[in-house]
């Protein structure tokens, strides 16, 4: 019960409290404490010091442990920097947005934790939808036309998509017809146990619907658009939150149903679908990297790319699967740094257009160098973690039954790297322009967070803790993958 209260109830209560008290600062303190507790607790659970047994629709397994840790980590850092972010001057209309900021954050934490820990598809669906609802107003933080449009599109697209996911879930119940699962509850642990007996036709159908429906949330092409719009127009902490943890949550749903398909005859089909989805999103990222001239959109596409790589890895299976699991961690860490620093740049230059930005390294050295480093990290340059995970994924591809995928992937990644680099370096370098000559930037908490995260990224990559490896091994065992 303790874990239930800490992980799920307290955030809810905190949300209510944040609604009641008006002062932003105290809201910040409360949410920070909640976040810290959450992080601590999920860490304890992760390293196995504490065996949780959650009541009714909730339970934990190695997968949800991992994702929970990712979530609470991302959440903690986002909350940590949020206050300094809120202090920044915004338009008068945007002032009112601040009132609900922490309320919604806490609600988000509540919903997302529920989604990750839920053992029941219905529960998962409700919680996932709730996360969308909590994020949508946060996207509208700036109260300007772009953010409004982004919110509308995100809300609408994701709601429709998730409705499809619901259909998928219903199909799952259908697939249970005529088996011992008939009329049972949708506890996926049950489904995993006797998946082999399920009706393959409905199983395939439900996989398709759930995958496509949740793709709108994950940002798998061609359903990526709403996600990209939202991530590129949300305030950067929220953008970090979305591409760091929200997409992962949606991915969880897909992986659940995939896990059910694992022992069945439709396994290969599911893999194929995942591979198609991953390649499609890589291609989309590849195409748009040529055209984008808005750096937040660029980052959004980069997270489309990386979720694509993860999906691809899961679809390839084998070593690539483990690589994909590592990739989720590194990606979440890395995306945070990228979005935080991008947020600094935005608040300094007041534009999201690349052409309006130059000489960042000269004007704001801390942000500039961190941004540069995080770019290197995201493009898989050692010693940053993503290098190692991509190495695993590539190896998995090369020795899978479809090695040609590796060729395509490398080609796409290379051009993505070239274009992303061209755009970002154009921002980073260049001479100082007179209008931008201001005081040197001071060392803020954002920089601190970014540095810590980068260090984490390197440390996890190089040390690759045994506990983490065990966890990922057991995940892949759950998915019937022998390493």
């Amino acid at each position: 019960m303790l874990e239930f209260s800490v992980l799920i109830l307290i955030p809810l209560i905190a949300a209510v409290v944040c609604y009641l008290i008006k002062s932003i600062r105290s809201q910040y303190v409360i949410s920070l404490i909640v976040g810290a507790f959450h992080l601590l607790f999920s860490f304890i659970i992760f390293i196995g010091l504490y065996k949780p047994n959650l009541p009714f629709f909730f339970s934990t397994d190695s997968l949800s442990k991992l994702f929970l840790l990712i979530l609470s980590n991302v959440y903690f850092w986002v909350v940590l920097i949020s206050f300094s972010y809120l202090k920044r001057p915004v338009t008068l209309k945007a002032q009112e947005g601040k009132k609900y900021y922490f309320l919604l954050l806490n609600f988000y934490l509540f919903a997302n934790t529920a989604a990750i820990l839920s053992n029941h598809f219905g529960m998962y669906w409700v919680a996932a939808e709730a996360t969308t609802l909590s994020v949508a107003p946060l996207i509208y933080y700036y109260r300007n036309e772009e953010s409004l449009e982004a919110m509308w599109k995100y809300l609408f697209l994701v709601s429709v998509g998730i409705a499809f996911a619901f259909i998928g879930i219903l199909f799952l119940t259908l697939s249970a017809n005529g088996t011992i699962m008939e009329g049972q509850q949708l506890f996926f642990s049950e489904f995993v146990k006797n998946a082999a007996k399920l009706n393959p036709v409905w199983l395939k159908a439900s996989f398709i619907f759930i995958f496509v429906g949740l793709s709108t949330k994950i940002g798998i092409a061609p359903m990526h658009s709403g996600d990209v719009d939202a991530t590129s127009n949300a305030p950067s902490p929220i953008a970090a939150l979305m591409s760091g943890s929200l997409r992962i949550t949606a991915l969880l749903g897909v992986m659940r149903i995939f896990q059910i398909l694992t022992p069945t005859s439709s396994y290969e089909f599911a893999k194929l679908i995942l591979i198609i989805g991953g390649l499609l999103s890589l291609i989309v990222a590849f195409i748009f990297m040529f055209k984008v001239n808005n750096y937040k959109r660029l980052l959004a596409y980069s997270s489309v790319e990386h979720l694509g790589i993860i999906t691809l890895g899961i679809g390839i299976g084998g070593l690539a699967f483990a690589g994909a699991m590592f990739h989720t961690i590194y990606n979440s860490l890395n995306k945070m740094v990228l979005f935080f620093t991008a947020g600094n740049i935005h608040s300094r230059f007041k534009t999201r257009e690349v052409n309006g930005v130059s000489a960042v390294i000269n004007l704001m050295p801390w942000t500039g160098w961190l941004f540069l480093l995080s770019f290197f990290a995201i493009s898989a340059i050692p010693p940053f973690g993503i290098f190692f995970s991509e190495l695993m994924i590539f190896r998995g591809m090369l020795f899978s039954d479809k090695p040609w995928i590796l060729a395509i992937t490398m080609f796409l990644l290379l051009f993505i790297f070239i274009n992303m680099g061209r755009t970002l370096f154009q921002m980073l370098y260049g001479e100082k322009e007179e209008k931008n000559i201001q005081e040197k930037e001071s060392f803020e908490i954002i920089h601190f967070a970014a540095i810590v995260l980068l260090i984490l990224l390197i440390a996890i990559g190089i040390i690759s803790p045994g506990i983490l490896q065990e966890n990922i091994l057991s995940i892949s065992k759950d998915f019937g993958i022998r390493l």
Partner: protein
Amino acid sequence: MDTLFYSLLLQLSSIAAGIFFTEKKKSSAASHILLLAGLITGFIAALTALINSDFTLKDIQMFGISNNLFRFDALGLYFLCIIQLVAIPTTIYSYSYLKHYIEKGKSVRSNLVFYAVLLVSTQLVVVANHAIFFLVCWEVMSTSAYLGMNFEKGKKEVQTGSFYYLVMSHVVVFLLYIFFFLLHNQTNSWLFSDFHLLSGTGDLFIVLYALSLIAFGMKAGFMPFHFWLPRAHPIAPTVFSAFLSGIIIKTGIYGILRTFQFLNPAPEWLGWLVLAVGMISAVYGVWYALAQHDIKSLLAYHSVENIGIIGIGIGIGFIGSAYHSIPIQILGFGGALLHTLNHAIFKSLLFVGSGVIYQNLGTRNIEQMGGLVHYGKYFVVLFLIGSIAISGIPPFNGFISEFIIYNGFFTTAKELENYYPLLMLISAVGLAFVGGLAVACFTKINSIMFLGKERKEVKHFKISFYEYLSLGIFALLCIVIGFYPQPFIGVVNKVLIDGFVPAAPSSSLLNINWQLLSIIFITVIAGIILIYLWKKSIQKKYGRRISTAWGCGYEGLNPRMQYTASSYADELNEISKSVLGYHKKVIAQNDIFPAKGSFESHSDDLVDKKILLPVFKSFSEFIARIKFLSYTDIRYYIAFILIIITIYSLIAFLWS
């Protein structure tokens, strides 16, 4: 081996010194001292290990802990020695180089940090034994080099040039991934020391060779892949461009040699391929160089040339290995290895020299120089030594390695009868041709930069002690290797016997009559001195005076009447203008009162300007024209869901 690791730590500590000293001068001094200390200790350790040939292959004790990350075999140690040997004077120069910027009040912190990282990672690359560890060091090396290049971030060409380099190394590392994956799959071990198990020529064998030659060849800058050198070298700060073309491109050579260790014997056609590629790189590298006016890009093209010469040596070695002939392999690889060392030395010398000139005159265009000999006599002498050495002219080190390669040709012709003499002769002629072009090129830059009258008046031309020191060390090395090559030959021989030639120590390298050579060279010097004395006495007797140059009766010659670099090289460039992309722009009208005319000549790199850029441009235009998925309307978003679901359902339907 601990000493080596301690030395590396010492070098790393320089980073801390660079960062934490607030006062710029202090910080730079401190970090340079630490670097030097580290390098020198490391060099001594490595050299002793190499000479005493205690090559511990596995279980390196690192601070007492045994690990298999590292491997100190002869090849690795040899390259390690080269790196440290070249790095020492470069670091000395770096100090005075950065002093200029510090005086200008520019922050040099980043430069210090990246230089140290670059040094350490490069040293780790050549002793790494674990493939993943190698890749990590490799990437860190490339990235730090990239970051170091971007010292003057403001300039556009700096950004593009360095970006070329970054992209190149990204491609390289992608290829290396596959290379090592395949090797790992074959030997299921990540250790270099286990890799050379597999042999025999299957398809995989060829694939592996192709991968490694393309990847490492790209790094080394062989001809089709040379495009990045003339982009990256000129824009990098001198210290980095010296290190880049002195050392980093040699890591490519290192990789190729390692590959040969893994997979040997090499098939013969491969030997011919490498030989041909090397020859093309050598000839066109130097020919492109002849067409340049920017001193640094000229030197960059000369790196292509010298890499080509090394490639020729490697090619000979491959052929030898295909025929299991020890002498050929010894001479081929020996020439390649020694030339690697030599080129590292004199190319760094020349780059440092060009850096000194750039610091003083503020331009890299040699057309605007001239008459510098009257300002810095000794500097010119040092630079001249480098130039003679790089043109492979006796009595300096360049000649020694080319001599070995020529001997390789001869031996190949002798060992393998029938049509080989012809082919070898043609290769020899090619090498001679390269030599001729190199002479033309270096007479050009030396005479245009240093001799005659100054074309643009020289404000100040000062050379600090440190610059003289580092140049002096380099020049000394050139001279020593030239006049007394025996010990170096011995070391190279040892490396070959340890790493390349399985059979008993064959000494076709030592057979060459080195004593006689050095005697001859010494006679040359002695003779010059004797004649000098005689000449002095004669001149004392019959007098000597200075007067204006004989202009065929025409008084008032002025500097602008001198031969320029373009006019000097024009005749040669005309011959292969199509390849060089050599084109001239003349503006002059011939009426009675001629107005101000102008002339300029340029050369566009074939691969870069004619292939890469247009292809990329048209490709991106093509992509930009794709409207696929680029809708802004929510209704399309929704429609996509429906469409994709139908597609997936169809797949599902067709599945069973």
